[in-house]
Each structure stands twice: as structure tokens, then as C-alpha cells.
């Protein structure tokens, strides 16, 4: 009964806003259109418009995919305390984190699609229509868990929002079991992505037991960092109340995860460089370069500096408590993790090749445009989700089929309704 007004309210919220909002959405739209055009070139001419080659056969797209799956997983870090432990502080923040998870997931799936050489053959993945090589292929696991996680992360918050919009509290028996599943699922999506890379004996740079734990640590660093930035922005620009306790707890999670990430990095560096074998050569390329081939060396050292610096700063309590220090630290940490886990992980796995040949990788403009387009799509989705969720969470809009404070509202039956005014949502404040 409330679905029609719910959707109309959503559309209304998403399309109305101040000038800054429209500028932001307009800018994102421009990037999306540019990315779509670049992708059309890719469809027409083949993946040769990118900088990838037979040697470096995965590039910017899969780097971003790897990073964003981690972001999606980390959003669930907030769900656990909020719903299951019923932490009041986190309650408000959780829906925003779920929006981040949905946006990150959509971006991940988009990056996989734009990376495919034959995207119109994607239906081959659907079991029944096509053939899904499960359980042998880790990529088949990834397809299942990512789509399942997307479904969970869309269904549960939508249910909660819809319930609130309809004026009734969401039933715990309906969503709590799915919440438990969702938390475990979050860990699994990132472990599966890690195993996808770690399970390849052909690539000694990835073929370590530590890759899965490293992925989880870096995900729980970058994810909450981004959520902190988002929540701060929401607190500054809307009436949405977010307790300081939420920030404190999120910052603590980020800091601890960042410390664990650094410890794991040190462990990997020791393993690769104390007694370098042939298997260390990819790490040598990344951190020191091989002969004239040094393209990634400045990137990784900047990432290390950012990570170490931001982690060190966050370990100081006053920094975590002061937003003027916390926000830059989170932003720098986010960038550092993106470099380390994105291009600092996927690209060096291919250089040198399994037969020792060195071919470096530089993304082309088309590739960068598609990447920007996908990021813009994700941010667009995130903005829409947040913009829709906020008024409902604040109680500013409710379904018209509710009892209003001014007495019961008479609504004419559908058959005789002729006007939008009869069915549009009621502003309660």
C-alpha cells in the first residue's frame, strides 16, 4: 500500500536540493557520460583501447574492483554493533554505511563488466541458461557472493526504511537473521576475492597465505575511513544527528585495522626481502624497480608514507577526537590504501611475467575515462541513497496512509482519486 508513495517520495528527495547538490550531481553526470562514451569505444574497438597487454592482462579495472569489494565488506563492520549489539551510537550511522556498501558493490560489479572482453556473453554465467563452473572456479564463487551480498544490502535497509516510512517499527524477527548472515557474508566476499588472487601458483606475488588477512585488514581500514568522511559531511550539512561516540568508535576501528595492516606489510616485506628468491622478483619490481623499469616505485612509496603517517597520527588520541585532524588523516589513509591495494597489488603480480619478461603498464585515457565514469556512477548511487534515506530517517516524510497528528486523514479510494495531491507524502515537519 505504501509502495507508490514510497517510490514517489524517493524520486522527490533525489531530484530536489540546493545548488551545490545539483552541481555535484551534474558533475557526476558529466563524468558518467564521458565514461559511457569511452566504454562505447571499448566495445567498438576491443579492449585494445586500454593499456593492458598479454603480459599485464589485468589493469586499472581489476585494481579498482579489488579495492571496492573491500569497501563493501567493511560497511558491515558497523552493522554488527548497531543491529546485533544494539549500540545506540551506531544505529544512525548504519544506514549510511549500508549505502556505502551498496554503492561500492555496484562499482565493483561495473568494473568487472567493463573489464570483460565479451560482455554480451555474460549470460553464460547464469546457471541454467549458461554454465557456472562452481565450485572449482573462484570467480564463480565471487559472482555468487557479490550478487548475494548486493541483494542482502539492498533488501534489509529498504525494508527498514520502508517500515519507518510506513510508520511502523521494523520487525526484528524479519531482518535480524538476515543481518547475521550479512555480517558473515561480508567477510566471505572479501576472502573470496582474496582467494581468487591467492590461489594462483603462477603468480608468486599473490600466492601467499597472508593475502586474505591483508585484504580484510586493509578493507577495515579504508571502509570505516570513508564512512567517517561521509558521516562528517552529513553532520555538517544536514540535521541528521550522529553522536560523537559513533565517530570515536569508527576511528578506533580504522586505527586498529590500519595498525594490523602495517604489521602485515612488514611481515610481507621481511619474507620477500630478507632472503630474496626468484619468487621475490615481483616485489623487487614494485619497491625498487628492475633496471629501467621503475614505473610503480614512486607510487608504492607514497602509499607507504601515507599509510604510516596516517596510522601514526590516528594512534594519537587527540587526533582521533578532533575532526580537523581526523578527516585529513582518514582521507590520506583512504588514498594510501587505494594505491597499495589497487595498483600496488594487481599490477606487480604481472611484472615480470611467469616467463620472466618485463612489460610495463600505463593506463590510457579511455581506460581512465571509464574508471572515472564508474566511480561517478557509484558516487551518484551513494548520493541518491543517502538523499532518499535521510528524510525518512529524520521522520520528515511519512506515507500518506498514516494517522497524522492532526487527526485521521481521509483518503479517497483509488478509483475516484484524480489528483497527485491526494496521494503525495505528507510532510510532518
Amino acid at each position, binding site marked *: 500500500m505504501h509502495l507508490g508513495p514510497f517510490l514517489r517520495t524517493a524520486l522527490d528527495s533525489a531530484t530536489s536540493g540546493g545548488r551545490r547538490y545539483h552541481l555535484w550531481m551534474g558533475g557526476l553526470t558529466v563524468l558518467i557520460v564521458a565514461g559511457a562514451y569511452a566504454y562505447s569505444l571499448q566495445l567498438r574497438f576491443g579492449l*585494445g583501447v586500454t593499456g593492458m597487454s*598479454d603480459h599485464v592482462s589485468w589493469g586499472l579495472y581489476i585494481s579498482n574492483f579489488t579495492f571496492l569489494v573491500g569497501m563493501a565488506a567493511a560497511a558491515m563492520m558497523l552493522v554488527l554493533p548497531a543491529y546485533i549489539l544494539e549500540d545506540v551510537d551506531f544505529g544512525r550511522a548504519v544506514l549510511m554505511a549500508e549505502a556505502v556498501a551498496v554503492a561500492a558493490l555496484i562499482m565493483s560489479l561495473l568494473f568487472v563488466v567493463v573489464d570483460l572482453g565479451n560482455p554480451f556473453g555474460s549470460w553464460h554465467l547464469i546457471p541454467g541458461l549458461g*554454465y557456472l*563452473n562452481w565450485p572449482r572456479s573462484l570467480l564463480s564463487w565471487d559472482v555468487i557472493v557479490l550478487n548475494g551480498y548486493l541483494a542482502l544490502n539492498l533488501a534489509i535497509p529498504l525494508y527498514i526504511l520502508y517500515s519507518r516510512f510506513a510508520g511502523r517499527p521494523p520487525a526484528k524477527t524479519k531482518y535480524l537473521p538476515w543481518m547475521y548472515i550479512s555480517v558473515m557474508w561480508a567477510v566471505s566476499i572479501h576472502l573470496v576475492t582474496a582467494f*581468487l588472487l591467492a590461489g*594462483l601458483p*603462477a603468480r608468486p606475488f599473490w600466492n601467499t597465505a597472508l593475502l586474505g588477512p591483508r585484504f580484510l585488514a586493509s578493507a577495515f581500514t579504508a571502509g570505516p575511513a570513508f564512512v567517517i568522511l561521509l558521516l562528517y559531511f552529513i553532520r555538517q550539512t544536514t540535521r541528521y544527528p550522529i553522536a560523537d561516540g559513533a565517530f570515536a568508535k569508527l576511528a578506533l576501528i580504522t586505527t586498529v585495522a590500519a595498525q594490523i595492516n602495517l604489521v602485515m606489510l612488514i611481515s610481507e616485506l621481511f619474507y620477500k626481502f630478507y632472503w630474496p628468491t626468484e619468487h621475490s622478483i615481483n616485489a623487487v619490481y614494485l619497491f625498487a624497480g628492475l633496471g629501467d623499469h621503475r614505473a610503480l616505485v614512486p607510487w608504492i612509496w607514497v602509499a607507504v608514507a601515507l599509510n604510516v603517517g596516517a596510522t601514526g597520527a590516528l594512534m594519537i588520541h587527540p587526533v582521533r577526537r578532533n575532526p580537523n585532524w581526523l578527516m585529513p588523516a582518514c582521507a590520506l589513509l583512504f588514498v594510501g590504501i587505494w594505491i597499495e591495494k589497487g595498483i600496488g597489488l594487481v599490477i606487480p603480480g604481472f611484472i615480470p611475467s611467469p616467463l620472466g619478461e618485463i612489460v610495463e603498464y600505463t593506463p590510457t585515457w579511455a581506460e581512465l575515462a571509464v574508471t572515472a565514469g564508474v566511480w561517478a556512477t557509484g558516487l551518484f548511487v551513494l548520493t541518491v541513497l543517502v538523499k532518499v534515506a535521510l528524510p525518512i530517517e529524520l521522520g520528515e516524510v511519512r506515507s500518506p496512509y498514516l494517522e497524522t497528528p492532526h487527526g485521521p486523514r481521509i483518503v479517497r479510494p483509488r478509483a475516484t482519486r*484524480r489528483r497527485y495531491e491526494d496521494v503525495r507524502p505528507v510532510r510532518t515537519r
Partner: protein
Amino acid sequence: MSDDHTSEPSPSGDTGSLLQKPVDRRGALGMMLAGAVAGSQALGACSPLSGETPEEREVKVLAWREYIKGNYRFMTEEERAETIARLERLAKLRGGVDVAIQGTEAQPGVVFGYAFNISKCKGFRRCVEACINENNLDRRAATQYIRIFEMQDGEVNLDEADATFQHEVPAEGHFYLGTQCFQCADPPCVRVCPVGATWQEPDGITVIDYDWCIGCRYCMAACPYWARRFNWSEPEVPARDLNPNQHYLGNRARKTGVVEKCTFCIHRTRQGRLPACAEACPTGARVFGNLLDPDSEIRWVLANKRVFRLKEDLKTEPRFWYFTD
């Protein structure tokens, strides 16, 4: 908009008939445009004035049927014959070439093995030349399935090897070692394909159904011997250079966005012939045969020569051995 409440279309649409439904300017324009588009499409599809020849129509129909077909591995014999017939017809319609695509299955009691003599190889790369011509490799991207490495004497170290040599061979202080797909007995590429587009046939050849591959390139990341190639653009083979003797799982025309690799010349070896590389080698460095035949040359080499394989520790069990004189 007008203040007249009758200007909004009724949500239920049950007041009055469709023809009496009030509509505003914008709605009317939209409906007329939709009608014009739909009408012209209908007209164009049926009329001979549309400019589409019967051949173009046939190409579209065949291409559609090819698009919706299933995985070759699970097709019945009829379906296989049908898809081969469609592909031959498409080659004729699109490129004007007559090709003969086999669907020959593996012979029972045959598993192929290959041995490479690193004392005899002198780096001539005649095998590469033969392979390119036999397998219709992309001339624009200059795809090569076979790589010949110029190695330093004294170690089998690929990191110190160079495959881009272009000088008189054999060069002092070096020996030559060739790689291609080793058709491993436990192939990592087959295990990781998410759609099952690549699998190993009973005679040991790892094959790819190019029409089923989605181009995710996971198999390329998984191969420890860098044996697979991707079509980063539309492959081009001039018609005068095209080898018309093709196999569905081998050297037929590939397309953009799919992976390909050496198939031990499946269109030749399943007919009892040697693969092009083994036949072309002028020094006799390549030995090919049936591993299940105890009296084959490949078995003689394995029994009487000191052999090794690359990356034995990965337990991929390649069916490609190296030996010396």
C-alpha cells in the same frame, strides 16, 4: 501546466474510452513520435526498399543463432554439426572465403606428448613462422603462440633469458629453449574459468570454445607458462593467407575479446599429422607423439634421455619435456 484538473491523466484510466482520453501537447507529440518510429521500423523490416539484402538478413539470422547457442562441450552431435555449418556459411558470407571446419573428436587410446631438444634448437624460429601460417594468427597484432628464449649457458633461468633476439643464431654462450602451451595434465587455466569455456579433451589437448569465452582473462592470470593470448582487437588475417583447414576448437576465425592458445594443431594431429611446429623444425629438435603408445618416439625420449619440465614444483604436470643430446 493548466489549473484544469482534467489535464492530468487518470491513474486508473478507466474513465471514458481511450479515444476520448484528454491529452496535452507534450503527450500528443510523444505519442505521434512513437507511432512514427514504430511505423517506420515495421515498414523497413518488410519492405525491399529497406536496403537489406537477403545475404545481410541471413548473416543476421546466423549471427543470432550463434549468439544464443550453448557451450560446445555439452552440445549434442547434431548441435555441433549445426554450429559448424553456420560458421562455415558465415565465413563465406562475411569474408567470401571457403573454409572447412572439422569437429573431429579425440582418438581413443591417444594422449599427446611433446619433447623439445635444447641442444638441437638453434633459435631459427621456423616453428613460429609455421605456427602463424597454420593457425591463422592475427597478423596485425603479430600474435605468436611459441616463444623461443635465448638462454645463458650454465643455468636454466628464464629471468636472464631474452626472447626478442634478432641476430644471427646460434649465438656463442647461449642455448635456446622454446615454450608454448604445455597442455598440462592438471591445468590451472581449466580450473579457474568461471563459465567452463576451456577444458581438456580426452587426448590431452586443452581447448577453448571461443564463442563461450566471456573474456575475463582469469585463465591468463592462472597460467604459469604464459601460454595464452587475448584478442585485444579484431584479429586480421588476409584472405590469401588464410588456412582453410580448420577445427572448431583450434584454428578457426576468432573474434575480439576472447582468449586463444596453442592447441597442438588439433586440426592436424587428430588426423595423424604432426603439429606445424614439429614438422617445420629444420634441426629436428621437436618430438611429438602418443604417450599411451609404449613404442612411440616420445616414450623413447622419456625413457632414454634425461628430461625435465618447467616449474615442476607447481604440480601442473605439463606434457612438454625438455631434453639434451
